[in-house]
């Protein structure tokens, strides 16, 4: 069973403080060090929520620039730097996921009103050259992503997730289970064998 613990040793927390203070002084190398340490976690949280790698990268960019502009908003009494950055990624990703959902619905509605869709543009080189590449994570429904992301990347229990989202505990248990079932079904036999 994989769990992501946010309990860090005092020295790591002190390192966090030193780096955050350096960022507050405008030290780009300090931001680079924080990026090296935490960008992957931020990216994984974002990708889980938004599905697409490309948009998740945009979230990473946004999170680190927000942190650069407002390092004083990090309060170590409320958690580690990792938790703070991943929480920023969570908020931004949820905003994007919801606006993307609205945009897609709007575009689908407009497309229905406009009749048959345009033919693909010249120069497209099959599905892989399109901007948006479908990933297994895109198969998840938004509520499933959110429940899994909060539990898996921020370490919340299912009860805490339910409380945070204001839904019954049973709903969260089912969302996590359904989301993981969908992901499991996306694993190819080869992937499953390699991972076993």
């Amino acid at each position, binding site marked *: 069973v994989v769990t992501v613990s946010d309990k860090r040793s005092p020295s790591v927390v002190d390192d966090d403080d030193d780096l955050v203070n350096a960022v507050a002084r405008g030290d*780009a190398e300090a931001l680079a060090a924080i990026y090296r340490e935490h960008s992957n976690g931020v990216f994984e949280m974002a*990708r889980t929520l938004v599905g697409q790698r490309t948009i998740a990268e945009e979230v990473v960019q*946004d999170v680190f620039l927000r942190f650069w502009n407002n390092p004083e908003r990090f309060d170590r009494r409320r958690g580690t730097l990792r938790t703070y950055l991943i929480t920023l990624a969570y908020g931004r990703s949820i905003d994007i996921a919801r606006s993307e959902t609205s945009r897609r619905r709007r575009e689908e509605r407009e497309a229905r009103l406009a009749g048959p869709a345009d033919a693909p543009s010249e120069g497209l080189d099959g599905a892989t050259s399109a901007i948006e590449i479908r990933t297994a994570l895109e198969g998840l429904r938004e509520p499933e992503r959110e429940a899994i992301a909060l539990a898996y990347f921020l370490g919340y*229990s299912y009860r805490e997730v339910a409380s945070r989202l204001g839904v019954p505990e049973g709903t969260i248990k089912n969302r996590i289970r359904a989301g993981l079932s969908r*992901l499991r079904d996306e694993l190819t036999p080869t992937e499953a064998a390699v991972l076993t």
Partner: protein
Amino acid sequence: VTNPTLSPNELHELLGAYAIGAVVDPAERSQITRWLAEDDSARAELDGFVRATSLLHSTEGPSPAVWTAIESAISQPRNNVVPIEEGARRRVRRQLATRVAVAAVAIAAAIAVAVWGVPSDSRSLPTKPASDVQRAAEQAKKVEGAQRISLVSPTGGNDKVDLVVLPNGQGYVLSDRIARVANRTTRRLVAVTGGVTVLLAKLGTGVAVTAFQLPSGANQLAVVIGTANVPVVSAVLPTPTPTNGATPPGTPAPAPSTPTPVAPGITLPHITLPGISLPLLVLPPLGLL
């Protein structure tokens, strides 16, 4: 302990949460452990869930272009590092200014329509930038070393976008004349840097975003429409864009010497940052507002 005795259905329901460490109640955990020891199918299901979590992890992480864009953005003077109280006041002032600006634009648009009517050429989309960005763009045109760049159609069409880019990489869209394509109104200004295509700004419907930050080492600019990665207009940049200090990934590519459109039919490298505009990247430096 909130669940002294879990039914088989409840145990099944909890298995997903258990697989990702979201069951912390000791009583629940011990009952699940006992159940797993006795039930082969439950163990198999748990294995499947644990394997599925591998899809939540990234072996590669974000592409190097992400750090390149961050590095480029932080080379600008930081304008938000102020005490929290002052920051809050400034936000209020900005919100107020934004509302006033939006109201002014709406009134001006209503007057313009009343006086001149709707433009006859409704196929093209001249950008109407917010007044503060427009002012910054006007100032940018006068800065020594600023480059004026025209993105033109690779196929010889009339589509054209004019830009100005300052030596520090801050850029502005001065004019945007791209014919509207039905159902494909999302237009993205992108740069190619180190063989990777990076989103600079989203143009078109809704809020017009006309400022952008050119990443270090960018050697091509283009506008793409919708989800296609074929440039509608494009240009090869005459000189490499500036780079600055901090380390991580991203190696800029060398740039040719004269601005030329990208060859017809060329397909840009995979877009790495599509879709959503980044306010922190597209706002001009505070000094220019």
